[in-house]
Each structure stands twice: as structure tokens, then as C-alpha cells.
């Protein structure tokens, strides 16, 4: 048992492509994170639904996914069996890291899932509503410290866009980067910062227990059964959603792209996938074809503009 497992561990870790693999999905992140979970959920659904017989997941962590992306472009060009998982964070990372390879170098297939950010304050905070936050931010932008994920990530972008939307100079946003939503949560709970901004999943339990107060989510619509308003409802015209996507290798033919898109469509409509979305609390944000291409281009433009505004990209 140990030997078998070890063999499996080593072979998956050093990414030896197996023989009859229908798809090899690269998660450009360490095991356990969102992209890894997306890739492994796809693997499971592909196999359980009989869409693909043998699916391998490889992890290539590093630098917001840009290391995995570069390797994917280098090694998989023209390979119709190679897929890569990515997302909004990668859009920002490509820009801040000045990565030589971008999402323009792969063949985007579809947007799969998404999650909105939520803006929270400690239960004891004087800030009760989004209006209070806007007022404090306008009075003295530096006095509002925002805790969220890494610099240039979706949380930072959302904080910058929030300031810009309410008419505050985004370069004055006092953003404190933490290496993950968990550490940011500790800083908010401990009252070290004014507000926290991160994925809803990071703060959900503390919102329910009453330790944190949610001011608003950054999504386009309220979550089912939730009493947290969206920013739009609270009077700030802003939507930021952290989405995850799947892309195929560059240099594949149109027929191959169509075949992969069909497989992915089968995947997202399957019962296994729906079950996964429910247990993981992911929102279904499936979008494919020309619509996705247009949306992706718009997201890249908006991200590039706000990263310049914040001063992270020259």
C-alpha cells in the first residue's frame, strides 16, 4: 500500500505524463488552493461522468500562476489533451510580474466558477454601513487600513476600485497585504486593521457567528438567502468577482478547440459538477465561446487600468 501510494505520489509530483491520459490538467498552484481544488474537481467529474477516461492533475506552483503558465505554453503547444486552470488572480499576476507569457498565449475555453469578495469590520467597529466606510475614507484615506490577500491580487484590486468609484485617489488606499485570507482574518478579528476584504469563504463562519459584521459583497447579485447587500445596493456602483477559468494549449486547431469546449460543457452541466459546486460553495459562472473572450478582454483592460492607478504597474 505504502509503496503503491509512494509511486503515485512521486509520479504525480514530477509530472510524468501517463500513457493513456485523455486530459492532463495543470493547476499552476500548490496543492490545496482554489486552482488546485478546481483542477481536482474537474478530474473527478471528468472521470465520474465518463467524459474522459484517465485524467492527470499536475501542480506547478509559483508567482500567481505565471510560472505554471509559462511552463504550459513552453511544453504543451499544439497538444489537444493539455488543459490549464487559471483565473482573475493570474490576470493581475501577469501584469505585476511583467510575465513574458500571458493569457493571450493560451486558448481560453471557459469561465467556470466565481466568488465575490466581502467587506467586513470587527463586530465592535464604529463602521455600521458602507456609507460610514465611504465617509471615513473620504475624510482621511490613510486612516482606513484594509487587510486582504497579496498585493495586486483581487482583494487589492477591489479595494483600489472601491476608492476610485467613491471618488478617492486609489494611490492613497492603505492596503495591508497578508499571505492569505486566513492571516487577514486574524488581523481583522484582532482589531489590528479597520476593514477586511477577501473572498466570502474566508470570512463566512465569523460573519455567521457575529464576530465580524459584513458591510457588503462585491458581487453582481445577492447570494441566495443572504442578508448582506451588494455594493450596488449600498450605493457604490462596483462589481468585482474573482473567477476561475480553464484554458487549452496554444496552437491547437479549431476542431480540437470545439471538441474541448464540448467536453467542458458536458462537465459543467453534469450532476457531479453541480454537487461539487454545492459542497465547495462555489458560484456557477460558466461562460464560454465568444462571450467569454469578450469578457476576458474587458477584465484584462480594467485590471491593467486599476493596477496602474494603484501604482503597482508602470
Amino acid at each position, binding site marked *: 500500500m505504502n509503496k503503491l501510494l509512494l509511486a503515485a505520489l512521486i509520479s504525480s509530483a514530477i509530472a510524468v505524463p501517463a500513457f493513456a491520459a485523455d486530459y492532463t490538467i495543470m493547476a499552476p498552484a500548490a496543492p490545496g488552493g482554489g486552482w488546485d481544488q478546481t483542477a481536482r474537481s474537474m478530474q473527478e467529474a471528468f472521470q465520474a461522468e465518463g467524459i474522459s477516461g484517465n485524467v492527470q492533475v499536475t501542480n506547478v506552483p509559483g508567482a500567481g500562476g505565471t510560472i505554471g503558465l509559462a511552463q504550459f505554453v513552453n511544453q504543451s503547444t499544439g497538444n489537444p489533451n493539455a488543459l490549464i486552470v487559471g483565473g482573475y488572480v493570474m490576470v493581475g499576476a501577469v501584469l505585476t510580474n511583467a*510575465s513574458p507569457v500571458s493569457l493571450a498565449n493560451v486558448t481560453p475555453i471557459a469561465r467556470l466558477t466565481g466568488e465575490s469578495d466581502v467587506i467586513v469590520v470587527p463586530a465592535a467597529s464604529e463602521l455600521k454601513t458602507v456609507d460610514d466606510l465611504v465617509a471615513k475614507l473620504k475624510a482621511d484615506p490613510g486612516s482606513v487600513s484594509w487587510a486582504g490577500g*497579496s498585493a495586486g491580487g483581487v482583494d*487589492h484590486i477591489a479595494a483600489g476600485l472601491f476608492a476610485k468609484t467613491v471618488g478617492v485617489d486609489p494611490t492613497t488606499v492603505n492596503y495591508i*497585504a497578508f499571505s492569505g485570507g486566513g492571516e487577514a482574518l*486574524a488581523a481583522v478579528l*484582532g482589531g489590528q486593521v479597520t476593514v477586511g476584504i477577501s473572498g466570502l*469563504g474566508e470570512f463566512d463562519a465569523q460573519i455567521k457567528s457575529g464576530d465580524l459584521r459584513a458591510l457588503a459583497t462585491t458581487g453582481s447579485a445577492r447570494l441566495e438567502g443572504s442578508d448582506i447587500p451588494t455594493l450596488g445596493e449600498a450605493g457604490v456602483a462596483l462589481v468585482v468577482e474573482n473567477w476561475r477559468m480553464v484554458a487549452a494549449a496554444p496552437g491547437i486547431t479549431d476542431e480540437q478547440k470545439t471538441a474541448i469546449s464540448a467536453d467542458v460543457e458536458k462537465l459543467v452541466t453534469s450532476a457531479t459538477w453541480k454537487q461539487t459546486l454545492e459542497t465547495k*460553495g462555489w458560484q456557477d459562472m460558466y461562460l464560454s465561446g465568444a462571450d467569454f473572450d469578450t469578457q476576458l478582454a474587458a477584465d484584462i483592460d480594467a485590471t491593467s487600468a486599476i493596477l496602474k492607478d494603484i501604482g503597482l504597474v508602470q
Partner: protein
Amino acid sequence: MDTFGLLANGLLAALQWQNLLYALLGVTLGTAVGVLPGIGPALTVALLLPVTYRLDPTGSLIMFAGIYYGGMYGGSTTSILLNTPGESASIVTALEGNKMARKGRGGPALATAAIGSFVAGLIATIALAFLAPWVVKVALSFGPADYFALMVLAFITVSAAFGDSPLRGVTALFIGLGLGVIGIDLQTGQARLAFGIPDLLDGIEVTTLAVALFAIGETLSIASSRTQMKEEVLAVKGSVWMTLEDWKRSWGPWLRGTLIGFPIGAMPAGGAEIGTFFSYAAERRLSKHPEEFGHGAIEGVAGPEAANNASAAGTLVPLLTLGLPTSATAAIMLAGFQQFGLQPGPLLFANNAPLVWSLIASLLVANFMLLVLNLPLIGLWVKLLTVPKPWLYAGILSFATLGTLGANGAMSGRLGPIPFSFELLILLAFGILGYGLRRFGYPIAPVVIGLILGPLSEQQLRRALAISQGDPMVLIHSPIAITLYIVAAAAVLIPLYFRIRGKGAVLSQMASDED
């Protein structure tokens, strides 16, 4: 129901045969992956997640916890026998443990590590059961300024504790601090000292550096000095088991290690390795045999090993009470909870009490199993040391290389048509650095410690200053930070005071302590 009743119910659940089986499977797997460098408990749990999807939640979580504890046990074995720390928490163990093994005291070193881990695991798990809500409140009150003060204390106590020459120790520390700057700066997202190489953007991997400096550096140094080849290594000198003297010298460090490791593991920005540094520094200060440090002092194995196991239990405090993962393995265990639709956090104890208590109880069971599994193996392990040196070092070399390849060795580099692993290149380069340090008598551990503490202290300092909008007074604003600075100042000033007074037995005692 009170805590005792809940824990007793949990024990009954954990002692069901299928849960015992999950625990056994977990600790066996955990020990195995802990022994192998490169494959850590985090990766193992991540790979097992999809497999356990259809199992019952209690069983799989018990298995994951077993892997976590087992990994902490297994990591010490390679550190002691092969000087190849499999994970960052067992780096300090290699310092004294490997020296002991060279002197034929590998048996007692492994035994004090195993029993110390058991004692620490036992006390810390009981503390987890009874003190979790309280400990987590204290841990949360640590702000960036307090963490920075803690790091200052670590720098001061730790840099004085390694090596015989303070100047060489500090030089080695600064090499580590320099290496720590490499990579994307967390606060601004800008790359520093990466020279356009994408593989450097995430900085230098701590385990790669440690394996390179310890294992590769030593192999090169052995290979370069042929005379040493004739030196006979005794596998076993005296008893394989701990003598009465060993027991007397071990129990204090076990308890102190537990006391240091548990709260640091529970801190959101703590981490198992920092507890081991503090424990090592404390034991060196308190030991009645300071002259043995650096040459195989049993306290230097007993304390840090207890500290790293206690901090593993400490990590579960914020995970269970807040849903806050403070280590890679905890982050993946969190994903495991979520896979079963459970959200760790303030409501978990209320909504899923039976599951939480059987998990805590099974940690106690896993701890017993580990002791029973590991003690008889010691006799077998020390046989490894009788392998002829050329074979042993060839083995270490391939072991270290395979481990690095397995952990981070993606073939990301490309030289013309030939792909190569950049991580291996780093391993070799730092192996040569390790050889150089050895050759010129510089201590190695401070380099690794600098790499770990440097980025942590920098980020905390900058966070503290950003939150206060640049006002440096924030650094001495909280009672926690002030206390830590006073302890740090005492650590520097008290030896200095005795030195200035300059007379009497105290001085000669201090001088021989510090030499």
C-alpha cells in the same frame, strides 16, 4: 456536558475499530512521508483528499491528523541519521542530533526525539482540548508590532546561540537575510533580486536551502577530505536506549519545548520552526553542559523535537476555533473539512461537537501509536549508520536530489531543447555554498534561520508601520511588545553586565559558557 465528558465520549468514538484503523493508516503514512525529504504531510493530505471524498468525515479527518502528527515524528529521523531535514521544523534537530549519531549515540537521540514528541503531543493535545478558546484569544491579540518584537527577540537569542564565534554566526545570519529578500515583495507585489528569472519570484524554498547546506554541503566536504574517510563511525556506543543520565537531561527540555512550541504554533503567524529556534536557544542557555552544544548535546534534540510536535497541536487551535490555517498542512485539512460541508470556526464546536471531540481524542490515540511504532524501529534505523561512508553519502546525495525533484522539481528551465529543473540548480549552488561555509568554519543553521525569520520580520514591521501611517511609536505601543523587548534587552545586557564587572567566578563561568 463538561469538557471531560465530551472528551470521554470522543475517546469512545476514537477507539472504534474502524477509527483506530484510520489512525493507524494515518500515522504509518505520515511517518513514511516524514522520513522522505520533499514529500511532506501537506502534499500527502492534498493527494489523499479526492480519495477520501466518499469515506465518512470523522474517519478521514482522523487519518489526516494522524498523517500530520506522523510527519512531525518522521522528520526527525532523517535529520538525526542523515543530516537531511525533511521539513523546516526539524532543521534544528539536525544540529545536535546528527552530531550525537556520529558519536554512536543515534539510539538515544532518536529515543529522546520520539519520547519527547510523545510527551509534547500528549500535553499539547490535552491543552488543545481544555484551553483552545482561551489560547486563541491571546494569539489574536498579537498585532504586527508584537510579531515584530517577537522576531527581534528571536534574532537576538538565536544568533547568540549558534556557533562558537559571534562574528561568524552573525555573518551567516546575514547571508540568510540576504537570501530572504529574493522574490516578490508581499506588500507591493514587486520582484526583488529575481534577475528576471521566473523561478526566483517566489523566493528560495527553505527546505531546498536546508537540504543543500546540510546534506549536499556535507557530502562535498567529506568527499574533499580523504583523510576523514578512515575515521571509523561507531553505529552504537554504549546502549541503544537512553541511559538514566539521558532521561535526567531530557525531561526538562521536553516540558520547556512543549511550553514554547504550543503557543507559538497557535499564533496565526507563528509556525513550527520558530518554536524550535527558541527552544534550542533556551536549552543552550539553561544547560549544565553548554560545552557539549554543537558537539551533540541531548538537550538540543529533546527540546526542539518537543517544540515542533507541540506546535503541530497548537496549529489545530486556530484551525478548529477560527477556521484559520497557520501551516500548509492545516490549510489542506481546512479544505478537507470543507469537502464534507463542515466549516471550521466558532460554530464548529457547537454544531459538530461529536466530530471535533473524536478528532481530538484520536490525536491522543495517534500519539500512543506513534510511540509504539517508533521505539522498536530505532534499533533498525541506527543500523543505517554502519553502511560504509561512500555508500551512505551516495545514498544521501540521491535521496536529497530525489526529494527536491519530488517537492518542487518541475522541469521549468530550458537550455536549448533540454528541459532542466531550476530547483536542482539551486540545490547544487547552495550545496557548494554549504561546502564553503564548512571549509571556513562558519555555522550553517543561521543561514536557514535568516531565510525564515528575515521575510517574516520585514513584513510585520512594514505592516505595523503602514497601519500606523508611518508612526514608529506603534512598535512600542502594546504591553506585549514592550515585554518582549525587555526580555530581549535582558538577554543582551545581563551577560554584558557580568563581563563588565569583570571579576569573580561568574565571569569565568560565563566565559566558558560562551567561548
